Structure formats: C-alpha cells, structure tokens
C-alpha cells in the first residue's frame, strides 16, 4: 500500500504521537515516582521503571496523612455538586428550550456569559460572602461554588439536547394525559440519558479536580478535598515527592474510571445536539 507512505498521513501520525506523549508522559512519570523509594526519586540517573519498586509511598499516605478523609471529602463534594447542578440545569435547560416567556433569550445569554469570566475573578468576592455567612471551611462553600460554576455549561448543553427532541412527542404525551412535569420525567429525561450522563461526568470531574477554590475556601482536613490536600503536601522546605505522587495516582484513578466507563455516552452526548437534528 502506498498510502502508508503518504507524507500527510505520516505527519498526522507524528503530530498525534507528539500530542499523546505530551498528555501521557506526566502520568507515566507520576506513576513511576509513586513506586520509587525516596533516594531513587532524587537519583541523578533517570529511569522510568523503578529499580527497587516499593509500596512505601502508598503506605505513607495512609499512615501519616488522612488520605481516606480527603478522598471522602472529595467524593461528597463532587457527588452533591453534580446532583444539585444536574437537577437545576435540567429544569433551566428545559425551560429555555421549551417555554416562551419575556426575557427568555436574554436570560439564557446571561447564564452563558458567566462562562466568560475566569474562575479567579470570583474568588475574593466569594470568600468575603462566605466568611460573612460563616460558611468558610464547610462543605456548603464548595457545593455552592461548584454548582454555580457548572450550571451554565450544563444548562446550555442540556438545552441543546432538549431542542433536538421533537415537540410532537411531548404533545402526544400531553394528549395522552401527562402534566408538564410528567412529560419531563417520563418522556424527555429517558430520551436524554446520553446528555445527562455526559453532563454529570463533566460536573463530577470539574468538582473533583478543582484546586483554587478548594484551597482558599477550606482551612482544615475535615473538609479539605484531594487537590487542596495534595497542594499542601508540597512543603516550604521539604516535600515528600514519593507520597505526593502516590496520592496523585489515587486521585486520578476515579477520574479515569469514570471517563472510561462513560466514554461512549460522553462522545454521544457531546455530539448528539449537532447530528440528530
């Protein structure tokens, strides 16, 4: 086959390989370090495969750091934020998609426009508000922050999907005896499962990975989430690189699992609005 030698194809492969290397190498390095004893981490000769593999780093993060606590905090924050965001976005997206009322399109645009501001700009005002309300260092601060971040994207994504569901199906259900809410629950939501899954995965991963707000809004291990806890493990003078990378591996794992598990839905959901017109 001459096709394999086509320079464009080769270039494409080369670019892809470069991109994959760029994305994957840090992960490989992280996994590698997490199995290395401390003196090997700092050794002058680099090796991907640990010469003396050890589980000591993993042992360490369970013995000297309340890793399970952080993990639980992250789980609670990510799951609650995802559920709340999804419920609100479903209702908002459905309303934007189906109802006609004054100010609908400007409101929808307003929701979208919140996405134009970088997250950092919100941190100081939000900190002040939360401290007045006494919410600093509580789950509530993180719930509110993450739900607020994810609602706009989720609302638009779900609105886009609802727009593709033919109105006549809903009208048939209304004639068959459904109320508006029943139409949503019995007809629209079952048809939107791919979009709902994709949206949930987005919310979950965002809440799970978020670092800035988690660091600023939490002050104790009781509510600190994994990214914030990992950040703190980088000390002023001395850093337990082995332990940090072991914790990093354990923190990345759930994201990878979620992603692999729902990958099919994710791709479906993100493109469904564009193709099923």
């Amino acid at each position, binding site marked *: 086959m001459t096709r394999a030698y086509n320079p464009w194809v080769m270039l494409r492969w080369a670019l892809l390989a470069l991109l994959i290397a760029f994305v994957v190498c840090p992960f490989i390095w992280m996994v590698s370090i997490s199995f290395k004893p401390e003196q090997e981490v700092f050794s002058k000769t680099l090796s991907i495969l640990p010469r003396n593999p050890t589980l000591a780093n993993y042992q360490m993060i369970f013995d000297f750091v309340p890793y399970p606590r952080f993990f639980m905090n992250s789980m609670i924050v990510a799951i609650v934020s995802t559920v709340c965001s999804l419920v609100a976005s479903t209702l908002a997206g459905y309303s934007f998609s189906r109802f006609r009322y004054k100010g609908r399109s400007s409101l929808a645009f307003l929701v979208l426009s919140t996405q134009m501001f970088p997250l950092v700009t919100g941190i100081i005002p939000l900190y002040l508000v939360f401290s007045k309300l006494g919410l600093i260092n509580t789950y509530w601060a993180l719930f509110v922050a993450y739900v607020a971040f994810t609602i706009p994207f989720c609302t638009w994504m779900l609105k886009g999907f609802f727009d593709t569901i*033919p109105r*006549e*199906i809903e*009208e*048939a*259900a*209304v*004639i*068959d*005896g*459904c109320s508006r809410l*029943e139409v949503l629950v019995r*007809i629209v939501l*079952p*048809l939107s499962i791919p979009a709902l899954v994709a949206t949930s995965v987005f919310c979950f991963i965002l809440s799970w990975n978020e670092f800035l707000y988690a660091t600023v809004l939490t002050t104790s291990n009781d509510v600190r989430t994994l990214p914030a806890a990992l950040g703190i493990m980088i000390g002023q003078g001395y850093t337990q690189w082995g332990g940090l990378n072991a914790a990093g591996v354990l923190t990345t794992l759930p994201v990878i699992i979620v992603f692999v598990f729902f990958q099919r839905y994710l791709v479906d959901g993100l493109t469904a609005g564009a193709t099923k017109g």
Partner: protein
Amino acid sequence: MSALEVKGLRKSFGPVDVLHGIDIEITDGEFVALVGPSGCGKSTLLRTIAGLETVTGGAILIGGRKVNDVAPKNRDIAMVFQSYALYPHMTVAENMSFSLRLKRLPKAEIDGRLRRAAEILGLTELLQRLPKQLSGGQRQRVAMGRAIVRDPVVFLFDEPLSNLDAKLRVQMRAEIKELHQRLRTTTVYVTHDQVEAMTLADRIVVMHSGHIEQLGTPLELYDRPQTIFVAGFIGSPSMNLMDGTLRRAGGGSELMLPSGPVIGLPHLSVDADGVEVTFGIRPEHLSVSREGVPATVNIVEPTGAETLVNCRIGEQSVSVVVRDRQPINSGDTINLKFEGATVHLFDRTTGQRIG
C-alpha cells in the same frame, strides 16, 4: 347529536391572524377531511380542537360540552401526528397503553384494550418491539393504535400519511377507511392532498388562508364548486380555468378569450351580455372531435387507462383527458368539443360561482 362543533373560531399568533372565524358542525360517526394548501391553517385548527393551542375567539364543543378551557387529556380526543410521535424508548405495547396507564385503569382492562387494538391493526406480533425496529407503515399503525385504545369521542389526524411513500400511502388510506367503517368514531382528518380527502371523507372542508371556502360532500365539491379556489383545488387533473368575456350568441353564448379565440357555448344561456368571468371546465368533460375549437397540442401524458393532453387555444393552456387511444402527438392541431359539457362560471372579482 353533533360530536364536534366549532363556532366562530378565531386564532392569532401575536399580531398574525391565522384562523378568521371557522364554523363546522360534525355529526356523530362522520369522517370529515380538512383540505387546503400548506399554511392555510389546517394544523392550527386541529391543534386548537385538541387543546394544544389556546383559542383567541369563538367556541369548541365536543360531545355538546364547551371545551375551550379544558385540558387536552380531558377533551376525550385522540390525535395522530404526521411524524407519528411515538415514544422512542417504549415498546409498541407501552406506547399504546401509555394513556391508559396514566389513567390508572385496572391492568386487566388495559391488557384487554391493548389486545383488541393490536388485533384490529395487525400489531399483535410486534407488541414487544421498539419503534425504531418498525417500518414506516407499522409505525403509522402504532400511532393509530395509541389513539384507538383510548376509545375517544373524536379522532384527530394531522397529515398521517404524508411521510409514507406513494404505494404505502394508498394502502394505508384504505386501511384508515376500513378502520373508520369498523369503529365509526367521529374523525377529523387534515390533509393537503385532495385525492386523500375525496376518497376518505363523508364531508370535506376546503380551507384557504384561514377561511372555509366550501363545506360539502366530495361530489358536491366536485360538481358545484362555489369558488374559483375550490374549482381549482378539487379534482385531479385540476379544472381548466380561463378568464374571458361572456357574450350572448344566438340562443346560447360564447366566451371570448383575451388572446382572440372565441369558444362557442350554444347550450349555455346567460342573462347578462359582456360579463367578465372565469370560465371553468374539467379536463374529463372536454372531448376531442372532428369539429370544435382548434387547439395546438403541447404535451401528451399517457397513463394507460387514459391520456392527459395539454394544449393551447390561443395563449390559453387547456388540458383534456382522452379515454380512447387516439394518435395525438405534440405539435398536432386538434379540435376540442365544449358543447354539452358541464361548465362552471365564476365572478372574476369576487371569485364566487355565478352559474
């Protein structure tokens, strides 16, 4: 008793008036077709009857009860949509029984009704399939099944066959007719296809930009169209309509076409002399003969049983249906016989029938 009555119904979408005072009375068991060109308000009328659109003015009565403010589910109607609108995530059985389950009928009753409807429509084998596993015709039948199980006072159909290919459409048309003869449920059937309306309906409502042009049995509409619009809309191939001046000539009259030719109509006596009219004659009522008005053949379209010949008298295009096989070719000159045929005269300004 009238099953469905529409009185002075008006509907606007914001500043746009779509229906301007519609009056229809439909007796129990009747099959009424709403026909008209696309955009004339047929679907809007059907959807206001169903309760999917609110009413701007006038009243809708179903089974003698005013339902203007009654929710769709309580109107005792069932609707079949053009796109079928089946629930994609439910099986055929679930689709058909959905309304009954919402009403929380006893399971035995639901099963009974489902089985009966499935038998009538030949869906028994397909009950566990999903809509995407069905052909177009089968989906259409499921949509009808969903309506039948509810045993409503009125069936509403909105162009149910227009998504099917020509052959299947004819077959389903026959099935719908058979179904109506069997169930005798009052039916309002929207279509833009006048052939469908003619073949199915007991009475036809011809609509044109939000008005009723004429309401009558298929043959009334065919034999005595009340307006130019109905004359041109009902009948296939459609009626020849020509503008001209009608003059008295001997005991009869003659029609002068603007481009010069004169058509003699010795059997048609008119009161006035020199009136501007729109003259109508159906292609099947014209014939080719040895004498008559000369016409130049333009296009010949044989269909087997008959041949449609399109020709010109002066600049006026005229179609004629020829039943016997005559050697007519494009470019020939033939003579058209107007005498003794049923003709229709309309006032050119008002569009109304005058004789």
